[in-house]
């Protein structure tokens, strides 16, 4: 994995931090207060960013692998979050949309969600790796049908989970002021780091993404690797679904995780990963995810409406991608070289003149 890929997302992060500090010196303030239930909670912009950026960061983990191995993107993640979330609610609430008690333990619901997420991932993975369909198009299918399927799971009703414990995942555990999502992200990152360190997943994924034929002739099974990447993303989707559904303890099929697929893909791109596959740096994507969340939070602070948010994000993204394009970089370094050249030449002339004056004295 390349380490200089971290440069751009870190730069972006710093830039956003500086801009915010200039406008509001109290930007980094974090206060410890109490929420409605009387529990201590941290609040402040930083906390918001870390909290709400977590779903994106988790998705970025899986999306990076999918992009690297298959050279394409999975645009169905929003819809599959809806499906996984809906399945979770179905397990928790049974067929009753306003139950008094949980129909099954939360852990079971989560495992079902994982299974469902992985099934969706397997569907996409099969289309891409076995039938060789372009990822963006293959995932277009679940993108189109996913939310309908999610609604169908619960007969188009909106079940509400009665147990407040369920809300801990997307909120706060009593007594712990740090949002739970921060811990969830940390766990996911640690698991991914361990997997990447103690298996050849990184090497095989990059190999398959760069040259599938050669990889095959070296004994790697490209079909399996690509399939695996999509299944892993499916797992990430399940975790993100847990967080999202837990935040409101219910679901809104057309609104949940809306446009998150675009944010996830952007996170991967901001991390300097090539969207056509190959070498990747997964941590850069994670930082990219937080950059996007940072951007979103900054815009909300400036009272930008949520619908209009997209426009500002777009401009920032274009600027970022524009300035990191190799052609543009070449042009800029070429012009600065010229300016520096002229500068040093004129200095040399001055020095020569001075030397001449010295001599003639």
């Amino acid at each position, binding site marked *: 994995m390349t380490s200089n890929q971290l440069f751009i997302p870190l730069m972006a992060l710093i830039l956003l931090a500086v801009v915010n500090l200039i406008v509001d010196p109290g930007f980094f303030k974090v206060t410890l207060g109490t929420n409605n239930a009387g529990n201590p909670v941290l609040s402040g912009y930083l906390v918001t960013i870390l909290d709400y950026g977590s779903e994106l960061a988790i998705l970025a983990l899986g999306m990076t692998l999918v992009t690297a191995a298959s050279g394409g993107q999975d645009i169905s993640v929003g819809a599959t979050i809806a499906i996984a979330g809906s399945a979770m609610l179905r397990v928790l609430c049974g067929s009753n949309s306003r139950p008094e008690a949980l129909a099954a333990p939360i852990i079971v619901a989560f495992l079902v969600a994982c299974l469902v997420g992985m099934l969706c991932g397997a569907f996409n993975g099969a289309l891409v790796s076995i*039938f060789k369909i372009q990822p963006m198009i293959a995932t277009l299918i679940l993108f189109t049908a996913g939310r309908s399927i999610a609604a169908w799971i619960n007969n*188009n009703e909106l079940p509400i989970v009665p147990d407040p414990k369920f809300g801990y995942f997307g909120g706060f555990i009593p007594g712990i002021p740090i949002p739970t999502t921060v811990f969830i992200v940390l766990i996911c990152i640690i698991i991914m780091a361990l997997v990447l360190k103690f298996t050849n997943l990184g090497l095989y994924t990059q190999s398959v993404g760069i040259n599938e034929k050669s990889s095959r002739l070296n004994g790697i099974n490209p079909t399996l690797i690509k399939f695996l990447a999509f299944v892993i993303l499916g797992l990430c989707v399940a975790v993100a679904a847990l967080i999202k559904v837990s935040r409101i303890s219910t679901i809104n099929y057309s609104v949940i995780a809306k446009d998150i697929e675009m944010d996830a893909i952007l996170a991967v791109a901001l991390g300097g990963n090539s969207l056509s596959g190959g070498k990747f740096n997964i941590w850069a994507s994670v930082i990219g995810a937080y950059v996007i969340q940072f951007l979103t939070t900054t815009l909300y602070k400036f009272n930008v409406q949520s619908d*209009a948010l997209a426009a500002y994000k777009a401009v920032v993204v274009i600027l970022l991608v524009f300035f990191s394009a190799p052609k543009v970089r070449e042009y800029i370094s070429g012009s600065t070289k010229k300016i520096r050249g002229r500068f040093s030449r004129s200095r040399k002339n001055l020095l020569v003149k001075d030397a001449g004056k010295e001599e003639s004295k």
Partner: protein
Amino acid sequence: MSRSKLKGGLLGRINDTNILLFITVVIFLLMYIGAIVFQGSGFRKPQMFFNILNSNAALIITACGMSIVMITGGIDISVGGVVALVSMCCAVYLDKANGNIFVSILIAIGIGLAFGIVQGLLVAYCDIQPFIVTLAGMFFARGMTTIVNTKPFNVVNEDFVKLKTTRINVPGMGSYNKKGLYIPAYVEIGVIVALIIVVILFVVLRYTKLGRSFYAVGGNRQSALMLGVNVRRTRFLSHVICGLMAGIGGYVYFLHVGSGAASHATGMEMNAIASSIIGGTMLSGGVGNIFGTLIGVLSLSTIQNIVSSAGLDQAWWTGITIAAMLCIFLLIQSIVIRQRKRALKR
């Protein structure tokens, strides 16, 4: 040597484009005939077919623009956003600024061209991936739509309403309603525009050097460069055309719905892509044709009509059936192409 001679004969006539188009047309005809047979009365009226055209004129136009970008090897997912933006801007102009029709048309074209030009510059001259650029374009367009005017509203400008409700009668295809009155079949202005555009783009793709260079660049960009094709300009123009089509399509959409709203045309870009693929355009580039895209749009819409006339809940089932159809088509494409590759090896 003998292998090549064989290939020159029968198989020479067949190429990727022809096979996919053939499959598309066959499936569409089967579907429509099936609909007539099984769903009966509604579908038998020619007006049903014309209504499909009426409600999808905008999609036809944007899908054709999309096909051109896809043939060149790129993609443009901003078209839905552009259509929404065009609708909103024109609506605001006509009602809030008391504008006239001609200028509103210019506004639509201007917006479409602007998007196409900027995106084309970034993709072709700065070498940034089209997916990202047009994704940002989509975000930008959708966001701007809300900024221009937050609430949706219907346009009441007189000239506009007159234009919107103009009906062009198709002679001889009318039907008798329950009271025995003859109601002529009609199409809206948008359909005429769409059909003209289809013909123009068909001619461009088939009979101009620019059109052929789209195919060349999509088929093998490096080779096209070596052969002397101006690859940058070709890619740039493909995005400009797509943007222009989004602008024109946007105005046609506006004519059809008669209002401006931020929720207009959501998912239109995906429909355009799906129509193109069903019509035989390959995402990898180099293969595709306009008539196929037209049939693709009609196929998509036929499904929607079958679904609604069967009394199923439109919102759910349309999504699922279109997805299923896309799935089937993609599988067919993948299998057909693989079979041809195998046959040619021997």
